[in-house]
C-alpha cells in the first residue's frame, strides 16, 4: 500500500512538471499520431505487391504494428526515464543516495520517474489495433482478450526484466552508455510478425531472444490463433526472467562499492 502511495506521489510530480508546458503536452500527441501513421504506411508498401506475407494479411500486420507502438511507448514512459539512467546514477554517486532510502532499491531505480512525453503512444497503438479489427470486420471474443491480457502482461514484465538484467552490469562496468540500444534494437525487430523472418533468424528471435513474446504472440492471441500452452510458456518465461533479474540486482548490490569508498 505504502508503495502505491509513493507511486502516486512520484507520478503526480512528473505530471505537474510536464504540464508546465501545456502546448508541448498536446503537440506530443500530434507527433505520436504522425509516427503511428508513418509506421502503418511503411507496412502498406509491401502489400502493394502481395496480398499476404507468411500468411499475414495487411490488417493483421497492423495489429502487430499497433502492439509494437504501444510496447515501445511503455518502454519510453517507464524504462527509459528510470533503468536507462542507472549508469548515470553509478557514475555520479546518486545510487548511494538511493540506497539509503527506506524503500526497496529495485522499486526505486525502476519506477521513480515517468516519461509523460510519450503518453499518447500506448493509447494510439491500441487504437490502431482496434482500427485493424474494425477493418477485419470482427471483434475478438472474451477468451481471446483474456489470453491477450496475459500475454501483454508477460511482454511488459519480460521487457522490463531484460532491461534490468542488462543495466545492472553497470555496477561493475560503470560506463555502459546506450546499452539500452541493444534491447531497443531487439524490440525494433518486433515491428513485424516473427513469421516474416526465416530459418535460423526466426528460431533465434523466438527461442534465443524473446522477440516473438513482445508483439507476435499477443497479436496472435487477439486474432484467435494462439494455443493456450504458448500463453502458459510466455508467463513462465516472464516470471523466470523477473526472478532472475531481481536476483542479479541483489547480487550486484552486494559487490557494489560506491564511488566514494
Amino acid at each position, binding site marked *: 500500500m505504502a508503495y502505491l502511495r509513493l507511486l502516486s506521489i512520484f507520478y503526480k510530480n512528473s505530471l505537474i512538471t510536464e504540464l508546465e508546458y501545456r502546448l508541448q503536452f498536446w*503537440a506530443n500527441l500530434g507527433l505520436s499520431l504522425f509516427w503511428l501513421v508513418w509506421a502503418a504506411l511503411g507496412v502498406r508498401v509491401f502489400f502493394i505487391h502481395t496480398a499476404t506475407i507468411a500468411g499475414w494479411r495487411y490488417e493483421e500486420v497492423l495489429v502487430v504494428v499497433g502492439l509494437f507502438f504501444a510496447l515501445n511507448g511503455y518502454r519510453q514512459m517507464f524504462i527509459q526515464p528510470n533503468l536507462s539512467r542507472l549508469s548515470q546514477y553509478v557514475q555520479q554517486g546518486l545510487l548511494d543516495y538511493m540506497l539509503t532510502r527506506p524503500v526497496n532499491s529495485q522499486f526505486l531505480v525502476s519506477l521513480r520517474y515517468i516519461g509523460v512525453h510519450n503518453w499518447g503512444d500506448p493509447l494510439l497503438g491500441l487504437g490502431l489495433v482496434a482500427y485493424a479489427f474494425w477493418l477485419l470486420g470482427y471483434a475478438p471474443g472474451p477468451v481471446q482478450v483474456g489470453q491477450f491480457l496475459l500475454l501483454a502482461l508477460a511482454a511488459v514484465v519480460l521487457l522490463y526484466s531484460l532491461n534490468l538484467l542488462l543495466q545492472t552490469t553497470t555496477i561493475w562496468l560503470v560506463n555502459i*552508455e546506450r546499452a539500452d540500444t541493444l534491447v531497443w534494437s531487439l524490440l525494433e525487430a518486433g*515491428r513485424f510478425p516473427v513469421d516474416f523472418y526465416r530459418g535460423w533468424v526466426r528460431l533465434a528471435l523466438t527461442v534465443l531472444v524473446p522477440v516473438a513474446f513482445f508483439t507476435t504472440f499477443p497479436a496472435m492471441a487477439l486474432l484467435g490463433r494462439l494455443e493456450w500452452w504458448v500463453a502458459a510458456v510466455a508467463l513462465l518465461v516472464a516470471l523466470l526472467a523477473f526472478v532472475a533479474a531481481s536476483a542479479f540486482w541483489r547480487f550486484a548490490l552486494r559487490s557494489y562499492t560506491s564511488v566514494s569508498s
Partner: protein
Amino acid sequence: MKAISQRQSLVSNLLRAYTALLRAWLGVALTYRAQAMFWLLSAVFPLVMLVVWLAVENEVGPVNGWTAADFISYYVAAAVVYRLTVSWAVWQWDEDIRMGGLSVKLLKPIDPAHSLISEHISWLIFDLVTIVPLVVLLAWLLPVMSYPIGPAMWLAAVVAIIGGSVLNMLMAFSFGMIAFWSTQSGNVFGLVSGVGQFLAGYIAPLALFPEAFRNVALLLPFRSTVGLPVEIMQGRLAWPEIWFGLAVTATWIVIFFTIYRLLWRLGLRRYEAVGA
C-alpha cells in the same frame, strides 16, 4: 592589387580555420565510443525492411523484377548512404539559439556555420574509414551483392553522395533557423524527415512505389540523399537520368542555401534585438 591580396588572405585564413576545426572535430569523433552503437541503431530499421522484402520475394517471386540479390544490394547501400548524408545540425542550432550559446559563438571572428560544417565533414571522414571498408569486405564475402558499374558511374555515385550530404546539411541548417522564432524547430524537421524517408527511398526502393508517387519524389530534394546514389550504384540509371538527378540535387542545394542565408540574416537581427 590590394583587393586580390586581401581576398587571398581571406581564403588562407578560412583554410587555416578549417584545418584546426577539422582536427578538433575528428578528435571528438574518434573518442566517441558510443558511435558503434549509434551505427547499429540506424542500421536496424533498413535491415528489418530488407528481411520482409526477402520474405515477400520468397513467396511471390521477383517483385517488379527485383530479386533477392537486388534487395540485399539496395538496402546495404541505402543504410551506408543514409549514414553518410544524414545531418543532426538542426539540434545544434536549436540548442545554440534557444539557450543563448550562439552569443558566445558570435563573438568569434568566424561564422558559427563553419564549426558545424567541419563537424559534418569529420563524421563523414570517420564513417568513410570505418564503415565503408567493412561493407566492401561484406560485399566481397557475400557475392550476392553486386554493383555492376564502371569507373565513370562510380564517380557519379560519389558526386551524388557528396551532393546529398551537402543538401541534407543545408536542409538541417534551414530548419534550424526556425529556432529564432519558435521552440519547435527540431520537431518540425523531424516531421519533414519522416515524410522524407518515404520520398528518399530509405523505407523502400522508389521503384516499388506507385508511379504518381515516384514522379513527385523525383522532383523533391529527399531522393538525392539516399535513392539517387544507390540507384546509380546498382546500375539502374542511364546517363540522362543521372544528369537529371544531379541537376535536381544542385537546384535544391541552391534553394536551401538561399533560404538558410536569408533566415540567418533575419533571425540574427531578431536575436540581437532580444539580447540587447
